[in-house]
């Protein structure tokens, strides 16, 4: 029943198209505990850009779990753009998505500087880890790859948010995820950048019954709903860590 309502809401949101200020677009069920959206780190460059009224350029670099096949408009990056626009009102927001599937963190890290030069973002959201976990890349190598990537981004003068792996209960006995989660946390701590804990958030949704992530569904609805919720959580995360609410009021 709830699922039906949710998808209905989502559908109306979609039909209405992005310009519609549909506040109810994200399904209301997927709350995230505040502790999972807390970060000690800040996004100074994002805050400065918004404050000075400059356009906010966001670049999402991710793997296949940052998109939904043939439904890119429903994936979380698109949602993030929608909701950032909504929240930031007059500030122009641009977002580009760079999906590099089947690439290890090391391979992606090597491309980051070029991407920054090409797209000139204020904020890079880097989702990584899944492919490395699947391939069983040495966690040490993974860490140094993420570390180098983040360092290069910081050197290029952009804010960075790391997004970790999805919570995927079906494959839990097949992939060893914890080392990759831990290492991403360590890199985030060492560079003092925010980490969007997608894994913990999705696990929370699964445990609290918001979503049944064990589900063997072949349909795309569940993916769309999860991504809508992720987009909403990520929007809140970006706005909170950049303290944009205050910036807006100023």
């Amino acid at each position, binding site marked *: 029943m709830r699922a039906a309502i949710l998808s209905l809401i989502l559908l109306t949101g979609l039909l209405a198209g992005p310009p519609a200020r549909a506040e109810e677009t994200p399904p209301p069920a997927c709350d995230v505990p505040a502790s999972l959206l807390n970060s000690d780190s800040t996004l100074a460059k994002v805050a400065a850009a918004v404050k000075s009224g400059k356009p906010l350029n966001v670049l999402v670099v991710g793997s296949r779990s940052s998109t939904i096949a043939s*439904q890119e408009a429903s994936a979380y990056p698109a949602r993030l753009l929608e909701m950032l626009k909504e929240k930031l009102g007059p500030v122009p927001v641009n977002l580009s998505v760079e999906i590099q599937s089947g690439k290890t963190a090391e391979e992606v890290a090597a491309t980051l500087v070029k991407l920054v030069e090409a797209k000139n973002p204020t904020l890079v959201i880097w989702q990584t880890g899944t492919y490395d976990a*699947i391939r*069983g890349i040495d966690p040490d190598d993974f860490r140094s790859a993420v570390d180098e990537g983040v360092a290069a981004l910081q050197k290029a003068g952009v804010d960075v948010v790391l997004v970790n792996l999805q919570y995927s209960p079906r494959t839990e006995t097949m992939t060893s995820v914890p080392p990759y989660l831990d290492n991403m946390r360590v890199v985030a701590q060492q560079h003092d950048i925010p980490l969007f804990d997608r894994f913990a958030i999705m696990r929370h949704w699964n445990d609290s019954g918001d979503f049944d992530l064990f589900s063997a569904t072949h349909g*795309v609805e569940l993916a769309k709903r999860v991504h809508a919720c992720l987009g909403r959580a990520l929007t809140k995360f970006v706005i909170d860590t950049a303290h944009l609410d205050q910036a807006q009021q100023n």
Partner: protein
Amino acid sequence: MTSIADTINGRPRAESTAVRDVAETTAAPAITLPAVSERELRLDLFRGLALWLIFLDHLPNNIVAWLTIRNYGFSDATEIFIFISGYTAAFVYGRAMLQSGFVIASARILRRVWQIYVAHVFLFTIFLAEISYVATRFENPLYSEEMGIMDFLKQPDVAIIQALILRFRPVNLDVLPLYIVLMLFLPLILWLMKWKTDVTLVLSASLYALTWYFDWYLSAYPNGVWFFNPFAWQLLFVFGAWCALGGARRMSRILSSQVTLWICIAYLAFAFCVAMTWNFPTQLGFLMPKWLENWMYPVNKTDLDVLRFAHFLALAAITVRFLPRDWPPLKSIWLRPLILCGQHSLEIFCLGVFLAFAGHFVLAEVAGGPVMHVVISLAGILIMSGMAWVISWYKRSADKDAKKGAVGNADMAGGSL
């Protein structure tokens, strides 16, 4: 004063075959189970405990796993398991080597290695069944990337051969390959120890240090490395062997000193606090100084981080001190299940891995939730204990028959591990 070493003077009961062989070569009327056989029950107890904890940790996202030691410090059940394995292996086969010589003892060790290898292949088959099932049934677009883990099914010929040569080891199937490699080198270790026990330990520590220095590893398939790096983890195994062959006795003065005690307590308390700030980053994370974080993290499990090794040493030192060998509860019925599991570690380990797979399957197909986690954890422990009881009942009766001469020795057990 209690130390672990001076205590194993009787022969292990459940591993009677191994020791029986020794007895055959020394005293003529073999196969006598001495009435006073005093097995070091503490080793069994803690190996049993390690097996339970490994099972609980292998159940993904298990709420009961909050009871396991890995959440309260650096080391976890794997350290206990490998250390005790080294200890008992050296004890059983070390005697064999002294009494029957290098060749016979090595042959027996190799037979044991073969058993572990077969057990590993058996577990791999179960894993293959599980992953194939998921691959054919489960196609959620949300997880199209994660499903990449099944890609190896497209090349089963390569994957299976890589599994047979231990290069392809799926998650949770990492411990046995490590164990196989360590056991494979046991003849060499024992031979060296027979020559100079302490030098062997020094060599082992040097190998550990060089591994860290030069970043040695064993590569895995399709890429990556062995999750438990044998070059590093051998230190625990050799250290266990060293303790069994008299090292623990020689350490007894250090172990009984007050200074050691307080160092251990302080270190464990420190590890506990660090673990808490890691587990509750938002509530307690602020307590952790940045420089300490930068210096310490990540605590490397693959290469047996020295923090983990030290944590295990501290735990072991405190355990040995406060749990004397004749601790009365060791004989109590309540600890019996743990001890029985520890006495049949290979069988129970395999069963535990299988039960973790099965438990995950139930959680996925039937129902999830904390209650279900508790039920499955308890059921798993009950099944492991029940199985251990059946095995030891079988071994006892088989031994009895053998004693009567009714049946030949069909018991394949090659030793204690």
